[in-house]
């Protein structure tokens, strides 16, 4: 079987990608799931996996080459298979050898190969690099309150083809004030389905019309939370670095061009903090027992080291299962209640931050969470995340504990409904049974999307997280 490897679309905004490195080379045998190359997108370096088995017969795009999404970059096939037609049909395939390929003529009235993924006849990407399937029920919003109905019984199809026609002129995602937003029908529809408020967008179309691209840019993959943090608050703070103030320079200031990542963050943050009405709930957790449990776990031989953040991830995952209203996102006229806890972990990088996703935290034991979170964070810093690891979070945790932050609040990463900001675990004077004592305390602040949930719901969730951390044996069952 011939498998075409195409430049994957790793985010809606991605138009081109660059091959940084071929891990496999022409002639190497490949099995499904092998990492074959590293790709650089506007935000991150990711590894791509092979979907088919065989031999890497042809590398079409060399290292350093940048091509549009959907373009053929390599061909995997059996050693004897004829891959010429695939190469001939590929947009930028090198000239096919010999007189074998006689036609596919790019003649004056018709192109043989169209170097654009969205043009007719373009090579279909047989492989897909989509985020994890979001299976689940859609909970319709009640018109009066705009709140999700409690019973997620009847699944209402979002837009069944035979269902009632949507009124095209409905100002989906229009500002509450009722001001007319100039947007294309498609832009309106995508905005409504993904919870983007058109009022907050800048229109790039004629006369400032908001077009599909503007909405997709707003939705572009990437991290949103304000707080950046490594998921693992690594043991004790290392020896302090010397404190040096740099010498004064001649220039009064310096303009540093935005990196692609910084530009994306700059574009995305106002799309959250602007249109999403945030509210914040803070709680202080007694971490004495959690700290003891962690010390005991880490004293065991052979098991991965568990960080405070790993405990928080596990606690959040369990609490999210009890509070699907917090594990939720606004999807146009519905609130999507997620039945999986896919938790995004904000990881600080030199150039910005990124939130790899730790999937299915609700069913993973603590040690697995610890191992996977560490691996994700390490690979995030090394720029070696895979595409599938960058999207699909249902909730995000941002931990600035290792930076001596007592508490902070984070910006929600749309379309998620909430984000938890975790501060340092500090020794404090506390009152226990009427007497002063020394206790370990940690503050957590959850930022919630008020369109999706209310204060009490966020508070009850936080109460459960607090309880789980204060009765930490629950994290082990």
């Amino acid at each position: 079987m011939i498998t075409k490897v195409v430049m994957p679309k790793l985010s809606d905004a991605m138009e081109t990608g660059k091959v940084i490195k071929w891990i496999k080379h022409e002639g190497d045998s490949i099995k499904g799931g092998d990492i074959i190359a590293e790709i650089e997108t506007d935000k991150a370096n990711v590894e791509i996996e092979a979907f088919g088995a065989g031999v890497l017969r042809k590398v079409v795009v060399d290292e350093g080459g940048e091509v549009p999404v959907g373009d053929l970059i390599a061909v995997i096939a059996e050693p004897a298979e004829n891959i010429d037609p695939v190469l001939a049909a590929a947009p930028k395939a090198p000239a096919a050898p010999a007189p074998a390929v006689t036609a596919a003529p790019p003649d004056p009235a018709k192109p043989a190969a169209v170097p654009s993924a969205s043009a007719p006849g373009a090579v279909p990407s047989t492989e897909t690099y989509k985020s994890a399937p979001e299976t689940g029920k859609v909970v319709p919003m009640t018109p009066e309150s705009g709140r999700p109905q409690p019973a997620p019984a009847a699944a209402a199809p979002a837009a069944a083809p035979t269902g009632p026609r949507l009124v095209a002129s409905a100002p989906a995602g229009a500002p509450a004030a009722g001001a007319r937003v100039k947007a294309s029908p498609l832009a309106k529809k995508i905005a409504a389905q993904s919870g983007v408020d058109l009022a907050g967008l800048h229109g790039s179309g004629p006369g400032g019309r908001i077009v599909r691209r503007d909405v997709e840019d707003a939705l572009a993959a990437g991290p949103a939370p304000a707080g950046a943090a490594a998921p693992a608050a690594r043991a004790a703070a290392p020896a302090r670095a010397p404190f040096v103030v740099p010498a004064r320079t001649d220039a009064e200031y310096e303009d540093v061009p935005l990196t692609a990542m910084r530009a994306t963050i700059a574009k995305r943050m106002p799309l959250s903090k602007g249109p999403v009405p945030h509210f914040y709930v803070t709680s202080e957790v007694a971490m004495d027992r959690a700290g003891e449990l962690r010390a005991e776990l880490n004293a065991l031989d052979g098991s991965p080291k568990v960080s405070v953040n790993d405990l928080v991830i596990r606690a959040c995952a369990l609490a999210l299962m009890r509070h699907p209203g917090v594990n939720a996102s606004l999807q146009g006229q519905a609130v999507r209640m997620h039945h999986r806890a896919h938790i995004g972990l904000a990881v600080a990088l030199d150039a910005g931050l990124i939130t790899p996703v730790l999937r299915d935290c609700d069913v993973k034991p603590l040690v697995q969470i610890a191992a996977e979170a560490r691996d994700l964070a390490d690979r995030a810093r090394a720029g070696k995340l895979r595409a599938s690891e960058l999207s699909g979070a249902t909730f995000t945790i941002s931990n600035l504990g290792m930076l001596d932050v007592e508490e902070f609040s984070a910006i929600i990463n749309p379309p998620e409904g909430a984000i938890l900001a975790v501060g340092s675990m500090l020794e404090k004077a506390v009152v226990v049974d009427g007497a002063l004592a020394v206790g370990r305390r940690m503050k957590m602040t959850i930022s919630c999307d008020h369109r999706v949930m209310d204060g009490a719901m966020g508070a009850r969730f936080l109460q459960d997280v607090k309880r789980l951390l204060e009765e930490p044996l629950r994290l082990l069952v």
Partner: protein
Amino acid sequence: MAAAQKFDVVVVGTGPGGYVAAIRAAQLGLSVATVEDDRPGGVCLNWGCIPTKALLRNAEVVGLVSRAEEYGITVKEWKADYAHAVQRSRKVADRMAKGVEFLFRKNKIALFPGRGALKAKHVVEVAGKDGVQALEAARAVILATGSEPKSLPGVAIDEKTVISSNGAVRNESRPATLIVIGAGAVGMEFADVYAAYGTQVTVLEALPRVLPVEDEESSALIARLFGRRGITIRTAVRVKSVTSGAGGVTVDVEAEGKTETLRAEQVLMAVGRAARVKDVGLEALGVAMERGFVTVGPTGETSVKGIYAIGDMAGRQLLAHKAMAEGVVAAEAIAGHTPRPVDYGNVPSCTYCRPQVASVGLSESAAKGNGREISVGKFPFTANGKAVALGETDGFLKVIADKRTGEILGVHIVGPEATELIHEFAVGRTLEATLEELIHTIHAHPTLSEAALEATLAALGQAIHI
């Protein structure tokens, strides 16, 4: 050599890309010189799009007369004169080329006959009948030298027994038997013309289907309809050699592992076109190239500032209308405007054989390829009143949309006036209309365009007339 004449913009080549760029630049107040070694209008007006459409119209009339009985008209004695058809096509081309000359005069665009080549970044040298003339471009040079027919390795096109579209469009005689190599638009259009006049035509295609850039369903239907008209279609065939000899041409082919020899009076080579980039002065100035085409940015500017390349020589779709769109963008950019870049994903593709084939956007398999859920609506012309009244019911109109958003991903038409019908969808896609907007647009009855409405309704599961 006369002293260099100065202009704001010098355009080399006056095909559809070049002449449109020249006119647009002139409209924006720039002084423009054009250089052309043939007649204004390029291949498109003189040797391609326009004369072939005239020939295809003749083929259509021949087709209608031969089925006149269907309409209750008895034609006792009639003769289809191929030489006359070619003469008519020459007149049509001549008239259109004159039109370009008129537009140049109207817009005060200077035309320098001769071959143009870059001598320096802003200097074009024209080698004409009366000597060499240097033209200096104060703002930019736009290269629009187009493309020419390719052949297979080792096969020479002599325009006698092995001909290209250049020969086919000029020859006033037609062979009794013809092998067309390449089933793209050019190959299929000439197959249609020659077959209509009685030539026994065989079409060979290396890929598994005819019109390989079109949707699979369009390819399949056209292959069937051509077959029904007596045209032999052979796909997945490799041409091993082409040998001219006494009394015709021998073509050795390999199909399904077996070799065989085909013979015909002539072979029409329709295996594609190559950019005309030789002797234009690109190498000396270090203009970047990629796989035989000039590399350009979103406004058509090449790797050398102030030098633009548009049309076929700049790659992507080798289509006149794409070249025109690039010409406008380049001219506006040079005049200091910020034009909207050409949307290469929304360039209609048209083949003028009978029935016509047209498409825009993704094929069905490409649309599915992204793991996207799609809805497909298809409407046959047999259920369209106007098509039945015309007696042209072969074909269908297929709309492919994103199931979730109703975005129109691709449209494929085989049928009467398909090349006109496609634009409803091209406009819709530009405006980012979804299926909803189209179905709320009233389509006049009876028209072929109702098929567009019905196919769109079908994509929503709401077709009325089927």
